[in-house]
């Protein structure tokens, strides 16, 4: 009986290690916060706060901020019209992840065009020029 439960215990552990993905970065509550944000879109602030928390705790621990998180946070600030702050986070994404540079250059250019202007209209992602770029 004891042996049986030991075998079950060990195999349970083994199969858990077999399927648990090794997490490479400190994602914090990113997935859950994004899920809850999609579940109730009006409750956006918790998601934005979580992004900030992920960045702060990664920095405190001296670890790399997971890919996309600086940009995600920068874009949230951009949507709130907090343009200079948004720019600094786009720049951090740019510096940390070379693969992000094409997109971040666009975002930084877009932000620079808006700097000094009051955010009279809700900023959109017109920098992408998906429709005009034919």
């Amino acid at each position, binding site marked *: 009986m004891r042996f049986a439960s030991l075998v079950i215990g060990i*195999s349970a552990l083994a199969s858990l290690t077999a399927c648990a993905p090794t997490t490479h970065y400190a994602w914090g509550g990113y997935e859950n916060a994004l899920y809850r944000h999609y579940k109730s879109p009006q409750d956006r602030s918790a998601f934005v706060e979580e992004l900030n928390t992920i960045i702060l705790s990664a920095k405190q621990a001296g670890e790399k901020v997971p890919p996309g998180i600086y940009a995600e946070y920068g874009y949230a600030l951009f949507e709130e019209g907090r343009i200079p702050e948004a720019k600094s986070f786009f720049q951090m994404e740019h510096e940390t992840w070379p693969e992000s540079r094409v997109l971040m250059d666009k975002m930084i250019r877009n932000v620079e065009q808006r700097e000094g202007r009051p955010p009279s209209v809700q900023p959109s992602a017109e920098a992408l020029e998906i429709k005009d770029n034919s």
Partner: protein
Amino acid sequence: MITRYCILPFVLFLPLGLLGCVTAPKKDYTQFFSEKPRSILVVPVVNSSVDVDATSYFLSTLSVPVADRGYYVFPINMVKRMLEDDGLSDAAMVHNADPVRLAALFGADTILYVSIERWDAKYMLLTTQVTVEFNYILKSGRSGTELWRDHRSMVYAPNQSSGGGIGALIGAMIAAAITKAAPNYMPLAREANAATFAWPGPGLPAGPYRPEYGKDLAVQW
């Protein structure tokens, strides 16, 4: 196809532990290895299931497993919002757009297209069977050709035949009541992703941010 359930009762752990994660047939990675992608643009998910909310919920599970394979993953919510602002709020439109042009706009090496085939719960007497089924396709941002694909289906049903007797019956009833109240697809969806992207296996070879990058090319499984 054999699927794995990490959340099933203990009795099932032993055979599953022995089976491990490798179940899919071999795939051709020649094109993948010749392109050596560094980044993956995950675009919004196309939904063929009956649950309209499934698409954004499932989207939230994709960044972490893909990034953990060592690739730069573009900010998923930012990409979604930008596409929406540009009139591409319909994921099917994004999936049908020219991949080379789409990738160029974001500077992405590859694009990951995911569609949900099933995301439903079947209510039975003592249990609720939750099923998810996904198609994953990775396309080159340079040539638009397909580099990798996977299909995964997973079923979760609290097992009521394990212990026997009145205790097991009550256990099954409680499990069914909980699942019935709010079927939770997310652990199952995460499990499907973990199995899909796993390497060695059917998944993605190590990207540039993993120490074994470039060393797993010759791995035969």
